[in-house]
């Protein structure tokens, strides 16, 4: 009880200064005070040590809350209450009657400030002057008696007998008076006496700051010591020293994440890695731990996340994301850089975390000097301890710190769940808000957090709640989900004004990822929308589920972090007992492709044997392996290929990784880098960009009718251009790019991420030797370098200012008519992202980024599309044949495994489907050829980045591509009939080329191009003997020229989707038509073999010739061919040939031509100069490459 009294006393002290403002309320306050005593006393002990928290959000009792408000004011107005407190201790207060105004130091503020500009005495001069004001006021009240000159003697313990406050100061300034005041202009009133006095005030102020700082330190240490985990410090350290694996299980608030790394560091472990599932947690924890270990100015505590690294050789504790540690462990640097690895939040069971567990288990067997610490909530501890049962494992349980929570089940009747309109019915939630309003007086602080499953539910509840509180204005309603802009997300951390509660309507993001202080009420819908994964069609599915018991408890716990709480569950207790115990681990609901590839690259021989803590479905592993084979990352017998090796080093999806590799083959790497980066981050287009009329019109010019990836690239390019144009605006607060984004409904953060990711990709490609490193700086002139130097200096100082202001992060929310604004947003308007961007990218870099992010010419665009396809294959979709007569919402597409997929409403084609339809003029007729589907040279397919099922399956990030050409270039299985009039790709799409020979020639071209492409790839990845750089370039030039020409070929055909039933009746079957083709026009060195199932003959890895049953049309074409003579375009040959004979002829002709060309080339003198022109000299009968002047010389030489 003693502590309790103390606590109150100190707070009375605190409010002293403000008392005169509240005189009226004084008696009221007192009565409330005693009334609440019971409520308080129980928790006082706790509140005291968690004062840090209560200071931020207030407690529920009004007095405390008021205190808190006052403190907040005082923070804004420079610590008034605390200073006052300080004075009150020093001298008793006297009557305030005395109001004689004469000399004040404030009058000479300007002059006196000169002291501080020359000497580093005081940081915050404003605060200091506030202090001076108050000091003078009190001095006046005290009616200072001029007893200064009294002489004093020292007593028995050696101190002066008479009191003088200067003796209470244990330091002085190291300057002589005249030295200190040298810059202060002389004036009549500022006498030497006054200046001396001023010096004293400075010292008193500094002493006050010292005391304040020391209190801060003391409180910090007290808070630490009072954390539940603190009692286990020695046990933890001992366990880690003695065992190989230690599991620390503790619930929310026990302090394990911040303290355990510090304990280990203090116990002389010097290379500590601590993983976190979330990036933000890494930064926040590193900051906190650095602060607690008084280390903020050194580098001993650091972090490393995907885009950022703050660590160096001195760093002892590194907070790192799970994914990144996984990469480090599997990379060259390996695990040896750490002596303890702490895996935090393992119970959350994220993909990378689960893989890390498996790898650490393996590493423990290889290395005896590494310690593993697992930290989890107190759920499912057996799972982890059993998993490590063969290693020495020790489990330590730490109690959490949670206040009691009242649990109320209020199941929603099925009828109530959805109102008549089938829309989600928000009324149960509003009812609870009403209950809260009625039951708890508004003076009792505490916010509400509502957990819902998804966006539409959130919108419904937010709208209804806003409607509900329109009159009273006593709620601030804030939505919270991951697609919100960062600024909007940050609002949930703001303070609500007095008498107003925050109502945060959130997805499960607030369950673990975000912790909001001050929550007293929780409403749990019991539902979650979770991503699941269908490995068969590679489709992600966002579906609503009941939550698990574990997450229900987690949600409940959110109400008891700061004080006793209330949790309303909108389901029955029986529902709860039927919930699954734990949520499904991520490993079982996401594609495993890249993770498995990484494991294989690490040296795991068989991914099926990986020691998973809980293995994923076998089907999922098999599908991933298959998909890796399809992408050429694994060979048929599951060995890593060179593409696979490179892919495993790129921290992106296989598809994006493959794009990067292919991009680096051609001289297209710059736009591909930008595109890959743009496709790897969340889309910058917010909902607003599609819903808001103004946004829609202003972002119109970004749209590309080729599809979303190109639109995205355009947006990035334009954003860069805005940055580029305004490179000089460093000083001005909010950047114009920010405005540009806001107008178009774009999230600027994503562009910054793209830029960082792009740099990272570039570095990685350079690492993999796929890209030559470039040094931009060397190209700068000296004046440019000086300018840049100055700019950097300015930017650095801006960054510092930002950091300093960062401390007062939480902001006051206010109720506005429509939108909730955060106060003083404009005041400290340093756009830190902009500053960081400018620090990394100078003018020339930005301008090269601009050019690097554009694909202007047809050729560039086509190459970009091809590179994209090479990564995305087999993610192609074909339009439904009836799309042309259907409305926007009914447009359907079919992928190979997933028929009837819709276009995403937030995509280009989702709003402009007509671009994909054939124009009347593009459809041609061929006499006698009957087909249900139109004949055209302009059929198109869509390639897509992902499949997502929400209300229905959608294609996400689509790009249109010419159908036949793309299919022939990328399909893994191509089947033809005897005359090549029908070509079936991947047993999925059937192409009919009614015009004789067109199909055959197209296929031959495709086969040649594919061969060249493979060739180039193998050379670049170092599989084949290195050619001269010049020859590679030539190869590449020829290939890309060929590809673009090929894509541009105009051949009429029909396209038809084959159904399972069709597949049974189109092949001739085993043993039929197995005539060996000699010579083989598709690949000279491939030995033709009959196809075991389809019949026909395989002419290369992909193409099976003559395995399709001949149609009437094909027979007709074959007959006609016997009657018409054929002319070879390259040689003079003329005669009657079958299609395959023609192909044989053509490829022979081509070979001959190439040999001729090669011979011709050898005549060309090697040192060709820039302005050389070919000159055919009639006398020497040679083609010479000479400069114009040299030609004259040459002619002269003959004439002589």
């Amino acid at each position, binding site marked *: 009880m003693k502590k309790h009294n103390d606590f109150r006393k100190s707070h009375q002290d605190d409010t002293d200064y403000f008392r005169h403002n509240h005189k009226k309320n004084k008696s009221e306050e007192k009565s409330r005070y005693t009334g609440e005593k019971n409520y308080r006393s129980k928790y006082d002990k706790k509140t005291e040590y968690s004062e840090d928290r209560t200071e931020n959000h207030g407690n529920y009792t009004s007095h405390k809350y008021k205190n808190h408000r006052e403190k907040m004011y005082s923070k804004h107005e420079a610590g008034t209450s605390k200073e006052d407190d300080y004075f009150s201790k020093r001298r008793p207060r006297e009557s305030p009657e005395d109001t004689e105004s004469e000399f004040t130091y404030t009058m000479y503020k300007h002059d006196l400030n000169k002291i501080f500009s020359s000497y580093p005495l005081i940081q915050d001069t404003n605060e200091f002057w506030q202090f001076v004001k108050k000091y003078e006021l009190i001095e006046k009240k005290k009616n200072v008696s001029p007893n200064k000159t009294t002489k004093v003697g020292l007593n028995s*313990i050696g101190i002066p007998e008479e009191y*003088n406050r200067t003796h209470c100061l244990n330091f002085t300034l190291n*300057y002589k008076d005249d030295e200190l005041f040298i810059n202060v202009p002389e004036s009549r009133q500022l006498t030497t006496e006054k200046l001396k006095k001023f010096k004293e005030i400075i010292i008193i102020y500094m002493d006050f700051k010292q005391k304040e700082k020391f209190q801060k330190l003391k409180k910090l240490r007290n808070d630490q010591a009072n954390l539940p985990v603190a009692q286990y410090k020695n046990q933890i350290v001992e366990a880690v020293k003695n065992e190989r694996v230690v599991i620390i299980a503790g619930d929310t608030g026990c302090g394990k994440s911040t303290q355990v790394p510090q304990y280990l560091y203090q116990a002389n472990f010097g290379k500590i890695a601590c993983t976190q599932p979330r990036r933000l947690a890494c930064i926040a924890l590193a900051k906190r731990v650095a602060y607690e270990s008084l280390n903020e100015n050194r580098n001993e505590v650091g972090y490393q996340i995907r885009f950022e690294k703050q660590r160096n050789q001195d760093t002892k504790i590194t907070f790192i994301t799970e994914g990144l540690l996984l990469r480090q462990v599997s990379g060259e640097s390996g695990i040896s850089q750490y002596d303890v690895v702490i895996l935090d939040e393992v119970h959350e069971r994220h993909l990378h975390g689960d893989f890390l567990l498996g790898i650490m288990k393996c590493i423990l067997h290889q290395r005896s000097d590494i310690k593993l610490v697992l930290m989890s909530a107190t759920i499912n501890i057996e799972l982890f301890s059993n998993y490590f049962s063969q290693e020495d494992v020790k489990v330590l349980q730490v109690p959490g710190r949670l206040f009691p929570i009242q649990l109320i089940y209020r199941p929603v009747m099925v009828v109530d769940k959805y109102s008549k309109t089938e829309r989600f019915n928000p009324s149960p939630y509003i009812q609870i808000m009403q209950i809260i309003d009625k039951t708890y007086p508004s003076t009792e602080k505490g916010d509400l957090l509502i957990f819902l499953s998804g966006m539409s539910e959130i919108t419904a509840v937010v709208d209804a709640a806003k409607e509900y509180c329109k009159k009273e204005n006593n709620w601030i309603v804030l939505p919270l989900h991951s697609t919100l802009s960062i600024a909007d997300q940050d609002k949930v951390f703001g303070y609500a004004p007095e008498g107003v509660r925050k109502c945060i309507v959130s997805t499960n993001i607030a369950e673990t990822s975000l912790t909001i202080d001050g929550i007293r009420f929780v409403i749990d819908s019991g539902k979650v929308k979770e991503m699941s994964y269908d490995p068969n069609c590679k489709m992600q599915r966002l579906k609503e589920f009941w939550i698990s018991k574990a997450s229900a408890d987690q949600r409940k716990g959110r109400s008891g972090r700061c004080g006793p709480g209330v949790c309303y569950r909108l389901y029955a207790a029986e529902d709860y007992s039927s919930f699954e115990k734990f949520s499904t681990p991520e490993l079982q609901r996401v594609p495993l492709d890249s993770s498995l590839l990484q494991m294989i690259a690490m040296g795991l021989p068989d991914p099926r044997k990986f020691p998973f803590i809980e293995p994923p479905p076998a089907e999922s592993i098999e599908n991933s392996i298959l998909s890796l084979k399809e992408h050429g990352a694994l060979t048929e017998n599951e060995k890593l290929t060179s593409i696979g090796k490179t892919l495993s080093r790129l921290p992106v999806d296989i598809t994006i990784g493959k794009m990067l590799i292919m991009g680096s083959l051609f001289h297209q790497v710059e736009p591909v880098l930008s595109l890959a980066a743009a496709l790897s981050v969340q889309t910058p287009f917010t909902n607003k960009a599609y819903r808001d009329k103004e946004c829609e019109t202003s972002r119109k010019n970004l749209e590309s009718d080729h599809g979303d990836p190109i639109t995205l690239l355009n947006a990035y390019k334009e954003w860069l251009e805005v940055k580029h144009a305004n490179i000089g605006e460093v000083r001005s607060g909010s950047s114009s790019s920010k405005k540009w984004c806001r107008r178009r409904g774009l999230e600027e953060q994503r562009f910054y991420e793209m830029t960082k990711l792009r740099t990272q990709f570039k570095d990685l490609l350079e690492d993999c030797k796929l890209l030559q490193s470039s040094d931009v700086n060397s190209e700068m002139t000296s004046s440019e370098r000086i300018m840049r130097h100055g700019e950097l200096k300015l930017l650095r100082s801006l960054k510092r200012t930002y950091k300093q202001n960062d401390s007062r992060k939480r902001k006051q929310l206010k109720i506005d008519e429509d939108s909730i604004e955060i106060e003083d947003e404009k005041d400290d308007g340093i756009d830190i992202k902009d500053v960081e961007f400018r620090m990394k990218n100078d003018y020339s870099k930005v301008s090269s980024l601009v050019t690097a992010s554009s694909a202007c010419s047809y050729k560039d665009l086509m190459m970009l599309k091809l590179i994209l396809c090479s990564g995305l294959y087999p993610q192609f979709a074909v339009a439904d044949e009836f799309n042309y007569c259907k409305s926007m919402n009914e447009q359907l597409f079919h992928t190979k495994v997933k028929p009837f997929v819709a276009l995403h409403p937030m995509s280009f084609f989702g709003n402009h489907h007509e671009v994909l339809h054939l124009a009347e003029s593009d459809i041609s007729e061929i006499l006698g050829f009957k087909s249900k589907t139109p004949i055209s040279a302009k059929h198109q397919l869509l390639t897509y980045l992902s499949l997502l099922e929400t209300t229905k399956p959608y294609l996400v990030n689509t790009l249109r591509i010419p159908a036949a050409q793309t299919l022939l270039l990328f399909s893994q299985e191509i089947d033809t009939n005897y005359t090549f009039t029908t070509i079936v790709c991947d047993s999925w799409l059937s192409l009919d080329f009614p015009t004789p020979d067109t199909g055959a020639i197209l296929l031959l071209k495709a086969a040649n191009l594919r061969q060249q492409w493979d060739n180039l790839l193998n050379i670049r990845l170092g599989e084949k003997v290195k050619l001269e750089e010049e020859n590679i370039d030539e190869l590449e030039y020829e290939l890309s020229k060929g590809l673009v020409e090929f894509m541009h070929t105009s051949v009429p055909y029909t396209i038809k989707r084959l159904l399972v039933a069709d597949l049974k009746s189109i092949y001739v079957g085993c043993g039929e038509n197995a005539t060996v083709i000699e010579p083989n026009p598709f690949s000279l060195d491939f030995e033709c073999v009959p196809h075991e199932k389809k019949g026909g003959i395989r002419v290369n890895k992909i193409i099976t010739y003559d395995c399709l049953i001949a149609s009437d049309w094909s027979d007709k074409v074959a007959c006609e061919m016997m009657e018409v003579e054929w002319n070879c375009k390259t040689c003079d040959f003329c005669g009657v040939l079958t299609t395959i004979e023609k192909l044989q002829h053509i490829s022979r002709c081509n070979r001959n031509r190439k040999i001729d060309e090669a011979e011709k080339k050898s005549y060309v003198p090697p040192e060709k100069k820039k302005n050389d022109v070919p000159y055919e000299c009639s006398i020497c009968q040679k083609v010479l490459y000479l400069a114009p002047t040299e030609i004259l010389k040459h002619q002269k030489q003959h004439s002589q």
Partner: protein
Amino acid sequence: MDETFPDKQLLVSAGKKEDLQVDTECASGGIWKCKYCNLEEYYDYKGMKPPFAKHLKMLEDCYIIKDPFSISSKCEVLVLGANCSICKCSCCMECSIYYYKRFCKSCAIKNSHCFPSKLNDKIKQLNDK
């Protein structure tokens, strides 16, 4: 003890006097612990003239760290504590009182009658902490 000083001079000469008494311990770095509250910290410097804050002159030997709560370039300090002038034990700022000299909690209480009456409350408070 009939020696008398004018106010200001007292401070200065007191400093000088202490200067002579300084143990040569003003070297840097070490672990410091308060005898009373067990606050334990690493200190950067012990002495009267912290090299990283030239503008300050301590009037006693203090345990000092560079201010961990502000940016390092600002050369601010945080004084952790000092040794009691009577019993020589090390004590933190809150477990001791400074009046012309440093007195730890128990020495201050023991000799509370020797302090000016204005400090009585303060000394009593020490005991409560």
